[in-house]
């Protein structure tokens, strides 16, 4: 019957208006407006108990002004900004720079004079990553043979100047060490969540076990 399709469409939109809890397309960020029911649920009580306990918050929730902080839900493999880089583990091999499709990683090293036998063959002078042109493909992380470089998990690193987007060695060192578990199954295996977990120490973040002095001597010194 002509016109039935139109009516059917109207019922669909009405259904979505009346039962909106299914799934919203959008996520409120950085804070989420919340009603009384949601607040009570968050506290783990029923709304009545909650309203007796916290009348002011209840009032705010009733007029639609209450909000709670909320993060974008993201998977631990999320490839984000602020690389997690462990200087202790980096040998300055520049694999990352070589593998980067855009060539935005710049590494300058000089041979180390001391402690060659401990593995400190090269000292990093410069380690710049130009985040302004980075496309987060993660090939540098994939290339790193010593698991020194990890993708980060941040996503709100806006800057006012393009120059500020060039991350140097100091900033890489200071950045929070919350590595994404992308291409790092050993971190993923620990059940680490970059969003809520603690910072990961370099000793905890690697498959590469640092060889002992004896091992190294066995391997290299007698050659």
């Amino acid at each position, binding site marked *: 019957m002509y016109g039935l399709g139109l009516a059917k469409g109207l019922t669909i939109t009405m259904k979505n208006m009346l039962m909106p809890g299914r799934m919203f397309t959008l996520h409120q960020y950085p804070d989420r407006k919340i009603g009384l029911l949601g607040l009570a649920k968050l506290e783990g009580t029923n709304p009545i108990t909650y309203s007796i306990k916290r009348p002011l918050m209840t009032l705010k929730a009733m007029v639609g002004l209450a909000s709670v902080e909320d993060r974008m839900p993201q998977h631990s493999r999320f490839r984000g900004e602020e690389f997690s880089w462990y200087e202790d583990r980096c040998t300055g091999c520049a694999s990352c720079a070589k593998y980067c499709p855009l060539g935005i990683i710049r590494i300058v090293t000089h041979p180390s004079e001391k402690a060659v036998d401990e593995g400190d063959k090269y000292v990093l002078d410069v380690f710049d990553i*130009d985040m*302004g*042109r980075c496309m987060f493909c993660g090939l540098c992380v994939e290339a790193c043979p010593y698991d020194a470089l990890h993708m980060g998990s941040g996503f709100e690193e806006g800057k006012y*100047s*393009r*120059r500020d*987007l*060039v991350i140097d060695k100091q900033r890489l060192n200071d950045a929070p060490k919350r590595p994404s578990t992308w291409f790092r199954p050993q971190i993923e295996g620990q059940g680490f969540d970059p969003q809520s977990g603690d910072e990961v120490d370099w000793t905890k973040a690697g498959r590469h076990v640092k060889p002992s002095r004896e091992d190294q001597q066995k391997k290299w010194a007698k050659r």
Partner: protein
Amino acid sequence: MTRALQGSSVASRINESIPGAATDSNQTDVWVSPQSILEVATFLNGDDALDFSFLTSITSIDYIEYFELVYRLLSMRNNHSVVIKSRCYGREDLSVSSVTSIWQGADFQEREVWDLMGIRFDGHPNLKRILLWEGFPGHPLRKDYLGQDGEMQRPEDLDV
């Protein structure tokens, strides 16, 4: 499974109809002379057994001493395919005949080849640059094309 026809058998079929058109062949590809492309295309499209009614793609490769045009043809009715290649020697004023009159699908692809590789197609109804603008210097996909001189600017050099 799409069957890639034997290059040699297709070449002999072509040569039966248009003597001397197919110059060379291997397992999958047939080389034809650039002058005879339109005739070969007409034959391949019209032949009942071959029935190459579908032109998958046209592209070209710059081998420095010659350009190679690659026509990838498909018969949807018989589900077989063949690759026709053609070598154009020289670097300036290259031109081959357009196959737009046989396959409409060649229209944009020939324009793309002209735009990026600089091979003219005679008889094309609207041979203009397609991806770049009119007046763009050179044809970028050629191996001797040098882009804008100078290195890419790094942000620290920029005066932001």
